């Protein structure tokens, strides 16, 4: 479904631990939303010097006021600092829902959802969707420290189990989410992994899933400027079904990819064997070029 652009009134602003939560009234976005999708928010007001949009995973949609959308964020730079100062009734210029959603299993299988830091946000609507299909849901949530772990309580409420890790041991197990992931997979007999968070975490989670031979869907958080697929800034090397690596746009070809297709070690480069890389022609000139990204 087509995304929409709207000027959305802020309904509520909350601060939860180190996170801010903003709910906007955005019926068009709420009704189109599928879990894993995100919104692109303009920051700084009408005469802003900031031209690029900020992307946030949709954390929750509700039917109130025709449809509301909630997103959670931490202050990182100028744009999120501005967002943190918004008050209810302010208007936000929002585009959404954007991006490829998490594919949902047809059968009621066991799913483990792995989130690091703000990367946990899109996993909550996913958990609800999976539950509605009768899937078992287990959460593994991590963060640098207790205050950075996202909605652990909510996770306990909706999931069978919720395992928490922190780098400093201030909450749950000391360590990384991928340290405990094998144990959770074992115990929950997981059939599928969904993961969202920083690239190194996704790489590790993918390695774990592959060891278990189970499919993994990852949602990447690559730097984005437009969110709509036109600026070509958010590319990562992704292997297509045809085995050819392409520079895929995380915003429209993703943010959700099949974990084993992302070339984690080559993120931030153009691999020499990518379609159209310098000298590529000599090697791959004969192949089918009609598909651009996996």
């Amino acid at each position, binding site marked *: 479904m*087509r*995304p929409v*652009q709207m000027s959305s009134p802020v309904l509520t602003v909350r601060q939860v631990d180190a996170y801010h939560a903003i709910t906007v009234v955005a019926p068009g976005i709420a009704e189109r939303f599928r879990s894993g999708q995100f919104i692109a928010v*303009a920051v700084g007001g009408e005469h802003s*010097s*900031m*031209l*690029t*949009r900020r992307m946030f995973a949709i954390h929750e949609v509700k039917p109130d006021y025709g449809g509301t959308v909630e997103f959670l964020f931490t202050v990182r730079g100028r744009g999120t600092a501005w967002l943190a100062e918004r008050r209810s009734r302010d208007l936000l*210029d929002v*585009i959404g829902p954007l991006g490829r959603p998490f594919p949902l299993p047809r059968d009621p299988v066991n799913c483990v959802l792995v989130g690091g830091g703000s990367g946990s946000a899109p996993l909550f609507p996913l958990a609800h969707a999976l539950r509605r299909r009768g899937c078992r849901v287990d959460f593994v949530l991590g963060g640098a420290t207790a205050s950075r772990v996202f909605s652990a309580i909510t996770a306990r409420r909706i999931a069978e189990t919720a395992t928490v890790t922190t780098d400093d041991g201030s909450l749950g197990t000391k360590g990384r989410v991928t340290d405990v992931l094998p144990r959770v997979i074992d115990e929950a007999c997981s059939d599928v992994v969904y993961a969202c968070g920083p690239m190194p975490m996704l790489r590790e989670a993918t390695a774990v899933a592959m060891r278990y031979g189970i499919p993994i869907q990852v949602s990447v958080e*690559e*730097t984005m*400027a*437009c969110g*709509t*697929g*036109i*600026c*070509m*800034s*958010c*590319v*990562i090397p992704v292997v297509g079904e045809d085995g050819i690596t*392409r*520079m895929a746009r995380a915003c*429209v070809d993703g943010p959700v990819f099949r974990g084993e297709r992302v070339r984690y070690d080559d*993120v*931030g*480069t*153009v691999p020499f064997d*990518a*379609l*159209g*890389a*310098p000298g*590529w*022609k000599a090697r791959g000139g004969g192949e089918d*070029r*009609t598909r*651009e990204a996996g």
Partner: protein
Amino acid sequence: MIPDLRVRLGEWELDNPVMTAAGCAGSGRELARFFDISRIGAVVTKSVTVEPRAGMPAPRIAETPSGVLSAVGLQGPGIDVFLQRDLPWLLSRGARAVVSVAGSSVDEYVLLARRLSEAPGVTMIEVNLSSPDLARGGRHFAEDTAAAARVVAAVRETARADIPVFAKLPPDVADLVELAGECVAAGADGLAMINTVRGMAIDVDTRRPAVAGGMGGLSGPAIRPIAVACVYRVHAAFPEVPLIGMGGVRTGADAMEFLMAGASAVAVGSALFHDPSACLRVLRELEQELLDRGVERVDSLIGAAHRTAGAPGTAVG
């Protein structure tokens, strides 16, 4: 009274003067989710190359004050896929397709012009001269007036006679007016300007350039005064040459600025990153500006600032 928005670019007429800027509108499909792309004057494609190109590594874009610094490196599928997939799609949507081309040699530009001339439905060819010339160590064609003129002449000779050929110029060349003149002398039917301005940002945390390419191209409202100055100067020198003005157009009033400086049409580039329906909004705002001012024909504004101003001096600072 509904203002008449039609403009002429040489022998070619556009329903209205608002187009997309090359490389800022994806394949057209991405924007078509937000507005009807047949409603604007034309869709300009990203620069098409002979072979597919993977482009530059990420990070490719950094935000700067009222601007965007980018180094995408012409990522694209190459001419074959473009002709098979992207061009037919644009035409199926009723869009006027201006195809931007970029090559690393005169031969590549010629090949692109030939392929486009064989395809039906190409409204115009825009020759992106900010492309590295492999024969000259990767300096851009535009940096060498003679090389730029050779490209333009070759494309004009190759392209079907009924397809206008416009040369796209960057601002930071030794002598823009001279470059413009040489491109026209070489057969360009008009000029598009400006391409991005060379710039750099440094990430003070990593101490590295903020875009992987090191140098990038600056675009957006930040560069609008630079772009308006370029259009004004070139229009003053060659008032008969149709110009497509761009660089920081975000509103209808911005579009008027370019028209008054001498452009016959305007292109919207990085503003689309902020507002994917910017083209249509700019068009509506332009229409409203005309209504508010009682201007009946948009083309009456073209070059208007030259008619009111005394010859502007060059005093600075």
